[in-house]
């Protein structure tokens, strides 16, 4: 079908109702260890699909279902949910558009993709808001029933985009989804409202057909979700099948062709999909098991950190208890209280809430108690943009406290990586008796990827500084290799002591205003941070070659940078990708490693915070690439920056 061709399929019955979102339990996903080189056939090996509509259209649910289907079909994938800030924004408005993007296919996938090749738009607003993301030739599927005069007005449109020519560059299928859904579910006797709600499964059925993905996981989900209501269950199943069958008809009449997506060359393992919040919850619980310590997770709701609280509350069978405190100060304080009492306190928030915790973090440093502080970053300052991602709390983590108050900082790079990052954070906290910052962000928390299940037996146990039962000793005798003091807790009869935030005598722990003592305590705290590096592995390259441009990054930009560097390498640029898990302290070999490059490029979703840290700690002069529009980097933008600063490795490379 040529671009610009609009298929109209009308149905008589225009009555439909808006649907209300089904509460959606995000499902995990997988990560693939095999790298495929970029080839001309890549376009066919991977696809980018974006679902968009009102939050009431069940967009995130469709995305999650499609993700599952794709994973079970053996594809690698990465997803990007993009929610509006409002819970139930007025229907049909531009600012109420909710979207879900997935890149999947038979290749290694590390990003949700820059430009969707298929856009599913449930209403005019969802269409126009997402048009700028599309490249010419993209396929657009819209619900034709939604393009009424009233709804065009809701979307601030003076003319109908289906008719005014602005879609000429695309392949547009305007399908009367609402009518077709009503038709399909009619036998199940639902009211108009419930019938309308089945629309999302109709569309999902069609999109699953388009990419030859299995309907089975969605069928199972529907059977479970609507177990208590036969007619709803059957209607949704019918809608799913009807959408699928519709695709077959379209193929027969030649308007749309089904695409067969090859399986990804996955290494031998068991895989699942997983979101960042889920993997982080699992990682914390796993760390507790490795340390044989119970976890007290104390938090106060805030977007996008709340999902961690929800997931951990669902894992309370695994040695963790969650406590919803009255505010973030109480959250960190109760976590510190738990650590004082011999459990591991963990607290979690986003930037504004972490700001509130700051004073208490000083107390944890001064009293030498273990604590993990998770920051799911979002766009700031102040309330900023709660549902949009950013990496702008690095200064807060590294520098943001009164006094000389060092705190180790680790950062997760992807949804699945939060599992290992959480374990590392707990390991540092318990090994050194210190609070530790774990940085993640809104993108990682909500996004999902394919994850090869880790071999948990291969994880080393985590030692703690808890005293042997019945023993007796000096609480503030420190391990010279870690500066950890004894983690004595109430109940330990041999270690009764008092401790507090007033400077304490290095040996006895009693209050001390002695000048030399404060100097030595300050030195000790600095040494503790420095010694964290003694246990860190050497920084390595993710990929690439020495000598030219080093792209140094941290956090959720990983997938994008990985792809950009891979593409640039294939085009002959001399470039390498270095991705930091440890930011404070930096890996001991990093400074030396960077001296072997001509230039250092630091892409970040902030105004240059890691660049500052690198200058500060290593005197490295970094070239900055910064973006703060609430969205992840596009691969193309990072690639352009690499091209601007990296030398060519092979002159003969084909520039086409």
């Amino acid at each position, binding site marked *: 079908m040529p671009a610009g061709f609009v298929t109209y399929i009308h149905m008589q019955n225009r009555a439909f109702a808006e649907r209300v979102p089904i509460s959606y339990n995000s499902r995990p996903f997988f990560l693939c260890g095999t790298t495929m080189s970029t080839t001309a056939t890549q376009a066919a090996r991977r696809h980018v699909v974006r679902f968009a509509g009102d939050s009431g259209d069940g967009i995130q649910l469709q995305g999650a279902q499609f993700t599952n289907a794709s994973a079970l079909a053996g594809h690698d994938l990465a997803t990007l949910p993009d929610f509006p800030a409002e819970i139930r924004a007025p229907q049909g408005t531009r600012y109420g558009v909710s979207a879900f993007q997935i890149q999947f296919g038979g290749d290694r996938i590390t990003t949700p993709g820059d430009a969707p090749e298929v856009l599913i738009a449930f209403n005019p607003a969802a269409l126009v808001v997402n048009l700028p993301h599309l490249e010419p030739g993209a396929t657009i599927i819209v619900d034709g029933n939604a393009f009424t005069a009233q709804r065009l007005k809701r979307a601030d449109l003076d003319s109908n985009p289906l008719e005014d020519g602005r879609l000429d560059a695309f392949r547009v299928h305007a399908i009367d989804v609402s009518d077709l859904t009503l038709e399909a579910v009619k036998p199940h006797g639902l009211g108009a409202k419930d019938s309308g709600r089945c629309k999302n499964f109709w569309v999902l059925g069609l999109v699953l057909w388009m990419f030859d993905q299995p309907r089975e996981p969605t069928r199972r989900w529907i059977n479970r979700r609507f177990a208590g209501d036969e007619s709803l269950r059957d209607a949704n199943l019918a809608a799913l099948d009807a959408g699928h069958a519709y695709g077959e008809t379209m193929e027969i009449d030649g308007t749309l062709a089904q695409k067969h997506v090859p399986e990804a060359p996955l290494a031998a393992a068991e895989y699942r999909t997983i979101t960042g919040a889920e993997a982080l919850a699992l990682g914390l619980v796993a760390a507790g098991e490795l340390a044989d310590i119970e976890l*007290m997770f104390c938090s106060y709701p805030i977007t996008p950190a709340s999902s961690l609280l929800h997931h951990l509350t669902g894992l309370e069978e695994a040695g963790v208890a969650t406590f919803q405190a009255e505010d973030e100060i109480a959250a960190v304080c109760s*976590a510190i209280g738990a650590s004082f009492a011999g459990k591991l306190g963990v607290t979690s928030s986003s930037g504004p809430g972490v700001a509130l915790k700051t004073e208490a973090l000083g107390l944890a440093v001064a009293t030498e108690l273990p604590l993990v502080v998770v920051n799911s970053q979002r766009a700031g300052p102040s309330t900023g943009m709660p549902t949009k991602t950013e990496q702008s709390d690095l200064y807060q983590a590294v520098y943001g406290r009164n006094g000389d108050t060092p705190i180790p900082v680790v950062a997760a790079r992807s949804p699945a990586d939060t599992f290992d990052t959480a374990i590392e954070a707990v390991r540092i906290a318990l090994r050194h008796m210190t609070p530790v910052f774990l940085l993640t962000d809104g993108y990682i928390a909500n996004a999902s990827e394919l994850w090869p299940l880790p071999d948990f037996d291969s994880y080393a146990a985590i030692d703690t500084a808890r005293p042997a039962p019945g023993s007796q000793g000096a609480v503030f005798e420190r391990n010279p290799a870690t500066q950890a003091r004894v983690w004595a807790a109430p*109940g330990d009869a041999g270690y009764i002591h008092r*401790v507090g935030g007033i400077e304490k005598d290095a040996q006895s722990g009693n209050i001390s205003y002695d000048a030399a003592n404060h100097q030595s305590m300050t030195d000790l705290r600095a040494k503790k941070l420095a010694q964290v590096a003694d246990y860190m592995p050497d920084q390595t390259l993710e990929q690439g070659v020495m000598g030219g441009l080093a792209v140094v990054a941290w956090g959720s930009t990983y997938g994008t940078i990985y792809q950009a560097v891979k593409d640039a390498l294939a085009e002959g640029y001399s470039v390498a990708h270095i991705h930091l898990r440890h930011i404070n302290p930096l890996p001991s070999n990093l400074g030396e490693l960077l001296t072997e490059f001509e230039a250092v490029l630091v892409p970040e979703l902030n105004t240059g915070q890691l660049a500052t840290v690198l200058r500060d700690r290593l005197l490295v002069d970094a070239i900055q690439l910064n973006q703060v529009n609430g969205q992840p980097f596009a691969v193309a933008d990072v690639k352009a920056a690499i091209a601007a600063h990296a030398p060519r490795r092979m002159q003969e490379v084909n520039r086409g």
Partner: protein
Amino acid sequence: MAELTAKDYATDQEVRWCPGCGDYSILKAVHRALAESGADPANTVFVSGIGCSSRLPYYVETYGFHTIHGRAPAIATGVKLANPELDVWVVTGDGDGLSIGGNHLLHAIRRNVDLNILLFNNEIYGLTKGQYSPTSRIGTASPSSPGGSIDQPIDPAQFALGCGATFIARCVDIDQKALPGILNAGQAHEGTAFVEILQNCIVYNKDVWDDVSSKKTAADAQVLCEHGAPLIFGKARDKGLRLNPRTLSLEAVTIGEDGVTEADILVHDETNPMIAELLVRMRDPLPTAMGVIHRRTQPAFDQAYRARKTLERKTRVKDLLRRGNLLDRR
């Protein structure tokens, strides 16, 4: 374990309050209460915020945590939830507990966490050198209110009652007869025990409680609340509190005058929140209510919490990892 005496609960640390500070006698009462209850030092924790009052944990030979300004109730909640077996005390001041930490105090009390909260009310910020506090009476002259404070103060016991406290008591710092017993009653209470101690800051708010606690006035200015006993006071034990049903308020009457007999005097019912409300509000010329003003039974939060959240590790991570849709490519 050999029985410990009050002295055994003292630490080797030099007590650093100003000479004559009311905190000394409170500390003494705490030592005595611990000895009286046979508290196990290893399983007892004193958590405090910041202020002169909050230094107390350093002087008690148990576990102690001197934390940050206003946050002791939150930290103590974490301690208690992590280990409900512990006997957890909170020491706070009128500034620490009702100014910067008002929110945490509110939530600890309304949750009914099993804590013994001692609020040392000297109606002043002692540690920061004498600024007026949220309990200072209107007109309090201080470095930050040289012309006299104009803020409406809050009464700690009324605050606690408003938060839904299940135990409220009041006592004067130097009352060595009553204070240890009140502390023990709070310690025995399951849930938050809130004890307001009227404390004399001899340096910045000297004798602010004189109208209530001086030898001359005490008998007439205080009424000791005892469950089941008539609310009688006065040097000659001839005064009492009578409920005026028309105004729904308490009035002080003299037994033997105007036909008043002991039968007219209100009998204290510590479980009745309405009586507590009337008692905590009493101000001159009525006597100030002392002793256990309110006590009722309600499940402690930490018990309910740990009944639901056992912290047991019943499921292993290896099994959790495999939950969800799995793709087997082995």
